[in-house]
C-alpha cells in the first residue's frame, strides 16, 4: 500500500513539472524512478518507453506502463491518476480564468502569442520522430525519410484522413523495410 502511495506521490510531482508533456518530463522521470527510488533499471526503463510508444494515444501514458512494471494494476492506476489529475486540475482552472477574462482586450492577442510556440513544438516533435524512425534497426537508408516526406506533404496539402497515411506507412514498412 505504501508503495502505491509513493508511486501516486512521485507521479503527481512529475505531473506538475511536465511543461511540454511526456518528452519534457522523461529525464526527470528517469531520475526519480531509476536513480532515486531504484524501482526500475536502465534497460527496463528504455524498453517500457518503447512499449508505450507502440500504443496509440498521448505519450504521457508512458507513466502508466512504468507504474504497471513497478506495482502491477494498482501501480498503473496510481501512476496514471498521479500523472493526469494535477495537470487536469490546473487546466480546469486556466479554462475558468480565460472564460472570466473573455472581455479583456489583451486576452486574445496574448493567447495568440502562444500559438507559434505551440506549432513550433509540434513541428519539432515531428522532426524528432522522423529522426527516430531513421535511426531504428529496421529502417536504414532513405526509405523511411521518403515515407516521412510523402506523409508530410499528404497531410499538409490534402484534407483526407491521416489514417490513410498510417495504413500506407504500415504496408510500405512491411514491403520495403522488412
Amino acid at each position, binding site marked *: 500500500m505504501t508503495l502505491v502511495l509513493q508511486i501516486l506521490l512521485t507521479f503527481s510531482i512529475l*505531473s*506538475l*513539472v511536465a*511543461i*511540454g*508533456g511526456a518528452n519534457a518530463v522523461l529525464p526527470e522521470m528517469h531520475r526519480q524512478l531509476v536513480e532515486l527510488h531504484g524501482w526500475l533499471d536502465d534497460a527496463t526503463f528504455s*524498453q517500457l518507453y518503447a512499449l*508505450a*510508444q507502440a*500504443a*496509440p*494515444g*498521448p505519450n504521457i*501514458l508512458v507513466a502508466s506502463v512504468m507504474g*504497471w512494471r513497478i506495482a502491477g494494476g494498482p501501480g*498503473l492506476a496510481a501512476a*496514471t491518476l498521479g*500523472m*493526469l489529475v494535477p*495537470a487536469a486540475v490546473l*487546466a480546469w482552472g*486556466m*479554462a475558468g480564468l480565460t*472564460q472570466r477574462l473573455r472581455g479583456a482586450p489583451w486576452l486574445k492577442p*496574448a*493567447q*495568440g*502569442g*502562444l*500559438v*507559434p*510556440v*505551440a*506549432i*513550433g*513544438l509540434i*513541428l519539432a516533435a*515531428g*522532426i*524528432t520522430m*522522423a*529522426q527516430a*524512425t531513421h535511426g531504428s534497426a*529496421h*529502417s536504414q537508408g532513405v526509405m523511411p525519410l521518403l515515407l*516521412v516526406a510523402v*506523409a*508530410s506533404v499528404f*497531410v*499538409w496539402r490534402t484534407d483526407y484522413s*491521416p489514417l490513410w*497515411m*498510417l*495504413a*500506407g*506507412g*504500415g*504496408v*510500405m*514498412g512491411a514491403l520495403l523495410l522488412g
Partner: protein
Amino acid sequence: MSDAAAPALTRPSHAGLFLGYLKIGLLGFGGVAAWARHVIVQEQRWLTERDYAEVLGLGQILPGPNVGNAAVMIGRRFHGLAGALLATSGLYFAPLIILIILCLFYDRYGQLPAVAPVMAGIAAGAAGMVIGTALKMAGKLKLHAEALVVLLLATVAAAWFRISLPLIVVVLAPVSIALSLRRAGLLGKGAAR
C-alpha cells in the same frame, strides 16, 4: 454558409464530445496532436483553426500533455465539469486498454510482438503526419513574420539543440506574447500611436 473559409461550427453533444475524443485517443499513434486537430477542427468543426490553436497554446504553457490540457478546456467550454471529464476519459480510455494488453504481452513474452518493420513504417507515416499538421496550421493561420520567427526558433531549439521544453516555453512564450500584444497595439510603441 456564405463564407467558405469559415464553415459553420457544431456544438458537440455529451456523447459526441466523448466519442470525438475516443477517436483521437484510439488513432493517435506517435502522439495525438495531429489527430486532435483533424477531428476537432476539420472533421467535427467544434472550433475554428485559430480557436483551437489558442487553446492548444494555453495547454502548452501548463504542465501535462498539451492535448490533454486542451481536452479539459474544450470539454469545460461546451459542457462544464461533465464535459471536461467526458473529453478526458474519452482521450485516455482506448490507449489505456491497448497499453494494458501490451503490458500483458510484454510480461508474458518479455518483448514486443515481432511486427517491427510494420511499426517502423507506421512510425514514419506518423512523423510525417505530425510535420504536415504543423505546416497546415501555420499556413491556415497566416502568421505574421515575427510569429514565424518564434515558431522556427521553438522548432530549432527543441529538434536540433534538444533544449528542454520547459526552458523553451519559459523563454519564448513571454517574448511571443509581448510581440503579439505589440502588434495588437496594446504594448510599447504600438500603444502610443
